[in-house]
């Protein structure tokens, strides 16, 4: 399996707090990797380091063997990093479909020149994008809400739109930050199915989750993280049975 994203000896600390401690990891195409660990382990920070919200102190990240170190957040995104956020970060004054339209990796309307002088081509590209967005929303049973305002959606629906936006972005590496938090029922099943489909398409998926059953349901392998370090990596069932996890999550043995 081709490795899509490779992280090598990443280090990052904020003052005294270490969020990445010589962290190395790689994720291959088609893999759905679960990232679990207690709060403050550095899971979201890892995503932020990959996205480029802040630079690492040392170490490197490679996407398709291309180093991301000197790339800006926007550049990394365009290279193929798609992500969702813990607090969704949807564009609240816009409609659902509009949230998706601005998410395409190459947005032609970004060049004012195109807007002013190539309006016809822009219209064609816009129609194609709309169609793509519509298909994504249809897969999520949200197509009737296409033109609805974000603020009119339920929490679960908003979470799905967040995922839809990341899918619209179409990156080869998909980072999902607690996608299931607060979601239940039909949306839960749907999300799991969609994430599996995306992996089958060849994306490298990494999911940060506290919902262990979702992780078990979805991921074959997982990484257990604490204090910026990988403590265990491997098969999900083995991991869940491990002692270290029990101690760190529950503060001691359960049985």
């Amino acid at each position, binding site marked *: 399996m081709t490795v899509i994203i490779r992280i090598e000896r990443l280090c990052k600390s904020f003052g005294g707090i270490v969020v990445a401690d010589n962290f190395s990891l790689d994720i291959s195409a088609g893999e759905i990797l679960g990232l679990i660990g207690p709060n403050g382990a550095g899971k979201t920070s890892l995503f932020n380091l990959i996205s480029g919200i802040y630079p690492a102190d040392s170490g490197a990240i490679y996407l398709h063997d291309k180093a991301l170190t000197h790339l800006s957040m*926007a550049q990394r995104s*365009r290279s193929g990093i798609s992500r969702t956020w813990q607090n969704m970060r*949807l*564009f609240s004054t*816009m409609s659902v479909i*509009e*949230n998706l339209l601005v998410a395409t990796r190459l947005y032609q309307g970004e060049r004012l020149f195109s807007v002013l002088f190539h309006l016809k081509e822009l219209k064609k590209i816009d129609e194609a994008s709309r169609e793509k967005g519509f298909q994504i929303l249809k897969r999520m049973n949200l197509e009737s809400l296409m033109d609805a305002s974000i603020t009119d959606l339920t929490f679960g629906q908003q979470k799905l739109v967040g995922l839809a936006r990341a899918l619209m972005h179409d990156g080869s590496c998909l980072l999902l930050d607690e996608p299931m938090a607060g979601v239940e029922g039909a949306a839960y099943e749907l999300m799991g199915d969609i994430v599996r489909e995306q992996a089958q398409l060849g994306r490298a998926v990494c999911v940060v989750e506290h919902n262990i059953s979702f992780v078990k349901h979805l991921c074959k392998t997982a990484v257990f993280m604490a204090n910026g370090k990988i403590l265990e990596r491997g098969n999900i069932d083995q991991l869940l049975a491990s002692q270290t996890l029990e101690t760190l999550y529950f503060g001691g043995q359960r049985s």
Partner: protein
Amino acid sequence: MEYVLSVIVLMGIYIILSTSFNLIIGYGGLISIAHPIFFAIGAYTTGLCSLHFNTFPLVSLLLSGAAAIVFSLMLSLSSLRISGDYLLITSIGFQLGLLEVIKHLGFTGGASGLGNIPNVVIDLDRSGFFAASSVSIALLVVLFIRWILNGPYGLLISAMRDDEVAFVALGRNAMKIKLVIFAIGSGCAGLAGGLYAYYYQYVSPEQFEILQSSMILTMVVVGGMGSQWGPVVGAVLLLFMPQAIGFLNFPPSVMAPLQGLIYSLLVIIFMFLRPQGLLAARKRVQ
């Protein structure tokens, strides 16, 4: 009649100024109070071109807009590179600094201003022509900005305003968009400056001080920041205010600070009681 026409000319100019400022601060979220300096740059450019080179009026106006855009890039490139928070401070410095420079340069006429700008309207009713031009140009500017905001570029502007981090994480170049918004807004201000110079035939630095910043800010805040027609309403309403207090017949040394006082007070009242302004910004989706 003459008087009414002169008010209409001024109204057109201020509609351009308030609408373009609203683009920068209301839509772009760029906190700059230096809008009057681009107005000034446009006015001086037209004045100087007309005085020394007798350029064709439309050409002067275009040059005014272009000059304002160039200067706007000087300000925006330097400040936005770091963080939008610093833009306010640098914009104050930019405005006051450039005004100092203008006051000390010879060819701008220094502190006493640039006069004797040639009259470009001959054989026609001067005031009538200017009133018509002013309103037409204002309408064009408003429609142009509306067209941008309602199109694909406008989508970007809304998204950037809603959540810039998520926006950039989708691969968008927020910096470039801010530079473009700032340039368009400032360019329109420059255009208004050209119009101003041609009508009044006299330009001086004190017409572009902080009082102007207050006035334009008041128009946008009262009219409705981030709404498309709000600034127009703000401009029209606030231009009637000096006329209203003009009847009190105070000496000019009292009129100017009194106007400034009322403008600032209006901004304060509105920001506390009705921050969305008279015409609240509609969401893109109803």
